[in-house]
């Protein structure tokens, strides 16, 4: 596999986050980390690319992400691109996918585009599919393992009831589950190499996007209200029969599995 692009997102470390008056997550001053599923996608990409391939990481966010992107270069990515523009704040999944697709087109041809299956802050899982649609490519979601051979790709997908094995051709978009591929750490040589690779920075103008295609203005969905619930609380009947209880528990566990 020669050229792979991985979309990554910085998400809050803590589950306790604040939103502004427009229900946008306040990211300033909070501790961020790379989304676990995106990290898994990056490791899969690094393994597929091997020594001769290249892996580009692409993210959208504030300029503060330059340094965390450098960390991904130290872990083995060959190129890092940051899309940052105030006009993009508050983008919904569709506006995000539009921006990412414009960047992918600008950055060149890729054999494979990998994403995490969902980000732990929004939990929608919509961006990979929307990105594929915007690029006119097929999409496979919830990939667990990914192997390449001269004829194409073998992907194992995680389903609620088990797994499914698929064969696919490139180019394609694949979203990967968290923890399928534990991401390697930055190595000493990788860190030295990363110092000499600049993080490329793009804005809406570089991507040829109009303000009404970005951010809140370019979003089809609007968050009108938000309500907080006690995390982990779930209302349901109290089950006293062991067999029925085990069955109900099995159902709940399947629900949250992917």
């Amino acid at each position, binding site marked *: 596999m020669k050229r792979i692009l991985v979309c990554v997102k910085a998400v809050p*470390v803590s589950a306790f986050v604040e939103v502004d008056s427009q229900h946008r997550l306040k990211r300033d001053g909070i*501790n*961020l*980390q790379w989304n676990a599923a995106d990290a898994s996608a990056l490791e899969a990409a690094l393994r597929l690319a091997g020594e001769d391939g290249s892996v580009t990481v692409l993210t959208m966010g504030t300029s503060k992400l330059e*340094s*965390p992107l*450098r*960390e991904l270069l*130290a*872990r083995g990515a060959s190129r890092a691109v940051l899309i940052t523009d105030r006009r993009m704040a508050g983008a919904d999944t569709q506006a995000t996918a539009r921006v990412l697709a414009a960047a992918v087109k600008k950055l060149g041809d890729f054999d494979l585009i990998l994403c995490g299956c969902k980000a732990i802050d929004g939990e929608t899982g919509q961006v990979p599919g929307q990105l594929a649609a915007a690029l006119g490519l097929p999409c496979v979601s919830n990939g667990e393992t990914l192997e390449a051979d001269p004829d194409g790709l073998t992907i194992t997908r995680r389903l609620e009831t088990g797994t499914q094995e698929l064969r696919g051709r490139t180019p394609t978009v694949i979203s990967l589950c968290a923890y399928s*591929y*534990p991401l*390697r*750490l*930055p*190595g*000493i040589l*990788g*860190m*030295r190499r*990363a110092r000499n690779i600049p993080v490329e920075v793009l804005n809406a103008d570089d991507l040829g996007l109009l303000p009404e295609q970005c951010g809140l203005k370019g979003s089809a969905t609007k968050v009108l209200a938000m309500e907080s619930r006690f995390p982990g609380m779930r209302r349901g009947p109290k089950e006293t029969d062991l067999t029925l209880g085990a069955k109900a528990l099995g159902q709940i566990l399947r629900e949250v599995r992917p």
Partner: protein
Amino acid sequence: MISQNALHHAEKCRFCWMCRHLCPVQHQTGKELNTPRAKGLLLSMVHKEAQQFDKDMAQAMYECLLCDACTNDCATGYQPPLFIREARTEAVVSELAPESVMHLIDNVERTGNIYGVEKPGFGREGTDVLVYIGEAAAVKAPEMAENLLKLLEKAGVSAKVLEKEPASGVMLGDLMGYTEEVRQMAAVCAKALNETKLPVVVLDSYDAEIMTQKYPEWGFEIAAGVTTATAFTAKLLAEGKLEAKAPLGVTGACHDDDRLARTFHEFEPVRRMAKAAGYDLTEMFNHGKLAKSCGTAVAWGYMPELVTRIAGGRWTDLTRIGCDTMLVANPETWQCLSLCVPEGCRLVDLFGALL
């Protein structure tokens, strides 16, 4: 390259000074730079480009035992060892780490241990458990390793030891932070341990820590489980597979090593071993979760003089309570405390004491 998470910890400090009195390095050196909060402040200044990360700063990051006493007492949940470890990585990447440290890194890369010697073998066949001896015990406390193996034999436990035991990665991790090189070393070790399919009994709690805390995070769990040698021995005592000795009429104090105390919250097994060995127990100031470190094998490797003073501080803690018998069950604490046993005092290996 300090991660966002580490920086967050470095900048969270409220300068309340609570950790100041707990740092064993600060105690011995008296340097303000050796307070955990000062190290955080330095890194924060580097991040704000108010200061360069230079050789002096790198040196300061190595004047720390990674003992976690500061974390344990910090009201803000601030974890200095997290960013101190990353600062060590930065020091190595920038070629600013002290020469003594770089020499040890070379040794580990060549031989798997800081001592730069071929690890003595304890290889034997067994079917119940795999005993992981570790670098410090194999080179600096081989008697403790032999005593543990004899004790297991006495209890009827069939213990296997790998002929060529790979390094766990803990020494390299303490020297240059958790980098991919350390993870690769750990992967080799995990593979070798998992191939035996046996539960692993780990003599050195420093090895046990990396195996239980970092291996799963890095994607390779020890499938059959990891137990500290102290917890395993205490269990053998509880099951009656080892017999308690008659009282000796001697009072001793257990030194809790920092990883057992703060990572595993394991205090009772060592005391059960000490009582079964016939000792009456007393306690030093700063024991249990608050245990004061007496040094580590790695720190001894690059600052032997300071570690000898730190170990001396622990002996002072012992004599201050009118006791002369220090009871230990960890090869690294054995190595450090034996550097400076005061006249009239005794250092006791609890595995040996139970034989």
